[in-house]
C-alpha cells in the first residue's frame, strides 16, 4: 500500500477518535455543571484545560460558559481540533484513501460528515447539547462498526487501529495529567466533596463511571481510579488496553513486513510501563512525571511509525 495511504488512514482514525473524545469530555462537563457544581465556570474551564486548548480558547473568549465552550469545541471552524474540523479532516482523509476503504466504511464516514456538518451549522442551544453529543458518539460507532464488520484484517486495518489507539491513549493520559492533583492520594482530602466531583469528571470524560462501578471491587478513591484508567487491561480506554492494542497492531505489521521494527520495540517498552505493575509504584515515580513521560512516548511513537512506514517523503 502507499505510504500516503497509510498516513491518511492513521490520521483519519485519529481524527474520528478525537471527535468522540471531545464529545465525551463536553458531556462530562455538562453533567457536572448541571448536577454537582457550585462553580460552573471552573468546571467549564477544566473542560477546556483538559482538551489542551486553553490558549486558543482565551484568544477568542473572555469567560468560560457552556455556550462558549460548546461552540469552541464542537463547531468553531478556526479551531483545528473542534469536532467540525476534525470530522471534515477525517472525511478529506477518507476521500484521499478511498481505495483502501470498503464502501461501508467510506459511506459511514461520509454520512458522519454530512450529519455533523448539518447538526453543527448553528450554535447549539443548551437543550440540544445532549442529543448533539449523542449524535457524535453514534456516528463514531457507525464508522467503527463498519470498520470491524467489513474491512480485511491486513496492514490497512492495522494503520486504522494504530490511529485510534494512539489518539485514545493520548486523550486518557492527558485527562489524568490535567487532574493529577485531584488524583494524588492525600489523606486530608479523601472523601471531600471537591475530590469526588473531580473524580466523577475524570471517569465520565472517558465514559468509565459505569464500568468502574461494575469492574472495580474496591472503594471509590483516587488510587483505584488511577489503577482503573491506567492499568486495567479490561477497560478499552485505559492506557494498558491502548498500549496492548498498539503493540498488537505493530506486531502484526512487523510480521507482515518482516525485518526489524523500531516502533514495535518502542511500543513494547511503553506497554511495559503501563501493564502488569502496581499503582503504588506509579505514585512513587510521581503521577505527573509518569503521565508526562507517557505523552512524550506517544508523540515519539507516532513520529516513529510515520517514518518507518513512509507516511511522508
Amino acid at each position, binding site marked *: *500500500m*502507499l*505510504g*500516503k*495511504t*497509510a498516513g491518511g488512514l492513521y490520521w483519519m482514525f485519529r481524527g474520528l477518535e478525537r471527535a468522540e473524545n471531545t464529545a465525551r469530555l463536553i458531556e462530562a462537563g455538562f453533567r457536572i455543571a448541571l448536577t454537582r457544581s457550585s462553580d460552573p465556570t471552573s468546571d467549564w474551564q477544566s473542560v477546556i484545560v483538559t482538551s489542551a486548548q486553553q490558549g486558543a480558547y482565551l484568544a477568542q473568549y473572555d469567560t468560560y460558559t457552556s455556550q462558549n465552550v460548546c461552540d469552541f469545541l464542537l463547531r468553531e471552524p478556526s479551531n483545528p481540533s473542534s469536532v467540525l474540523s476534525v470530522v471534515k479532516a477525517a472525511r*478529506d482523509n477518507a*476521500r*484521499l484513501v*478511498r*481505495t483502501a476503504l470498503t*464502501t461501508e466504511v*467510506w*459511506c459511514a464516514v*461520509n*454520512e458522519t460528515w*454530512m450529519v455533523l456538518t448539518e447538526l453543527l451549522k448553528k450554535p447549539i442551544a443548551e437543550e440540544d447539547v445532549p442529543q448533539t453529543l449523542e449524535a457524535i458518539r453514534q456516528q463514531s460507532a457507525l464508522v467503527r462498526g463498519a470498520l470491524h464488520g467489513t474491512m480485511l484484517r491486513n*496492514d490497512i486495518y492495522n494503520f486504522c487501529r494504530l490511529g485510534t489507539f494512539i489518539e485514545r491513549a493520548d486523550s486518557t493520559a492527558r485527562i489524568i495529567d490535567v487532574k493529577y492533583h485531584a488524583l494524588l492520594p492525600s489523606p486530608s482530602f479523601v472523601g471531600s466533596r471537591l475530590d469526588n466531583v473531580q473524580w466523577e469528571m475524570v471517569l465520565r470524560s472517558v465514559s468509565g463511571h459505569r464500568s468502574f462501578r461494575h469492574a472495580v471491587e474496591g472503594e471509590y478513591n483516587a488510587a483505584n481510579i488511577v489503577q482503573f484508567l491506567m492499568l486495567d487491561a479490561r477497560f478499552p480506554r485505559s492506557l494498558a488496553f491502548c498500549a496492548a492494542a498498539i503493540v498488537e497492531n505493530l506486531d502484526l505489521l512487523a510480521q507482515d*513486513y518482516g525485518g526489524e521494527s523500531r516502533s514495535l520495540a518502542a511500543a513494547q517498552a511503553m506497554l511495559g510501563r503501563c501493564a502488569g505493575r502496581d499503582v503504588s509504584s506509579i505514585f512513587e515515580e510521581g503521577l505527573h512525571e509518569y503521565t508526562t513521560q507517557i505523552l512524550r512516548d506517544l508523540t515519539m511513537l507516532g513520529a516513529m511509525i510515520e517514518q518507518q*512506514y*513512509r507516511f511522508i*517523503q
Partner: protein
Amino acid sequence: MDKPKTFFNEMIGNGTPRAPYAKYGSWFSAQNGDRLAQKSQEAEGFFRRAGITFNVYGQADAEERLIPFDLVPRILSNSEWTKLAKGVEQRVRAINAFLHDIYNRQEILRAGVVPTRLIAQNDAFLPQMMDFVPPGGVYTHIVGTDIVRTGADEFFVLEDNARTPSGVSYMLENRETMLQMFPELFSQIKVQRVSDYPKNLRASLEASAPPNCEGRPFVVVLTPGIHNSAYYEHSFLADQMGVELVEGHDLRIVDGKIAVRTTRGYRTVDVIYRRVDDDFLDPLTFNPTSMLGVPGIMDVYRAGNITIANAPGTGVADDKAIYSYMPQIVEFYTGEKAILKNVETHRCSEPEALKYVLDNLADLVVKEVHGSGGYGMLVGPAASRQEIEDFRAKLKARPANYIAQPTLSLSTVPIFTDAGLAPRHVDLRPFALMSPGSVDIAPGGLTRVALTEGSLVVNSSQGGGTKDTWVLED
C-alpha cells in the same frame, strides 16, 4: 425562438413508444407517480451518501455538487448500438493512426489532407513526442466520443475526447442505482452489462505495459488530488480496478524507472493511467510550476520504461479544428468512408467561413477550438443580442481560435418531472478502450441530459444531468 422545431423523441413516436422503449413504456404506464418521485429522492440520497459528487471550479468554497440523475433510462436497440459501436471503433482507430503519423512520418501533412499549420500552431502538439512510439503503439487508451442524434438513423460525432475523457464512473454508478431502485425492470428487459468496464480497463492498461515489464504490470491512477472536479471518478476507477490511486508527490524516479512510495519502500510502476493534463505531467518538460506531475517522467517515458495513458500530446487529435477534417482523416488511414457523420463545421480561420459565421451568429453554435466543458461557447439561438455582440468582438479578435456549427435538432428523451414525463435534449458519450490488440467499447455510455426545457447544453458544469443508458440484448 421564432421558428418552432420538431425534435426526434427517442421514446415516443406517433404517440406510442418506439420499439426499444416498448417494454419500458408499458412498465412505466403501470407505475405510481408518487412511488417514482420517492425513488427519485432515494437515488439522490444514495448519491450523496456515496459521495458521488463533483467540485465546481471557480467557486470560493470548493463546494461539492451532485450531478442530477434522472430515472428514465435512455434505451438503444442492439442494432442501433452495433452500428454506433462500429463507427466509434473506426474513428478511434483512425485517431490513433493519425497520432502515430503526426508524431512520426507526417504522411497526412505531406499528402496535403490536413494543413500543416493546424499541427504546427497547435498548443496541444508536443514536439517531445516526435520520433517516438509509445508501448504497443497505443496513444489513445481511453476515448470518450460525444455523439448526438437528430433522427432515427441520424447520428453525428460532436467531439472526439482523446485526452482524459471523464464520466465513465457515472455510466457505472447510474446502472448500479437503477439496479437497486428497479430490480424488476432488469428481469423483464435484458440489458447489456457495463459492469465489466473496470476489469477491461485494467486489462487494457496492462496489455499496454512497456515490453521490458516483468511479471504482472503494476498500474496506478494518477490524480491531481481531492480538490479536482473529477476526483470522485479517479478514486472510483482505482478502487474498481483494484489499483493504487496516486498523486505526483507519491512518485519519483528510481533507477531510471517510475516508482511509488509504499509502506514497504519504493516500488516500480509500469503503467500510469493519468488524469492530469499534459501541461502538468512533467515540470522539467512542460509547466515548470506544476506540483501535480513527476519531474523527469518524460525522459523515463521516452526511454520506454513507463506507459502513460493516454499518451501525452493526444490533444492534437481532438481539437475542434482537426475535428473538421475527421472524415478525411478516417478515410486516409482506414481506406473506408466514415461510418459516423461529422457536424458541418465552419473554420473561422478561413476568411469566407468567418464572414459566414459573423453574418449568422444568431443561428450558430460557436466554440473555442481548444475549449471543453461547455465553457466559452456561444449558443446563438439561446443568446441575447448583447451576448452575441460581445462574442462577435472576441471572434473578430482571434478568429482562428473558433469554429462554428449549425445548431442541431438534438433528439430528446423524456425525464421524470413532477408533472410526468417531459422531453429533454440528450447526448451520448460511449467509452472506448484501446489496447495493442483490440478496441473494446462498453455497451452504452454516459447519456447527459439538459434538464432545462429547450436547453441544448448538457454539460454537468452547466446544469446538465445524467441518465442510465441501456443497450438491449436483442
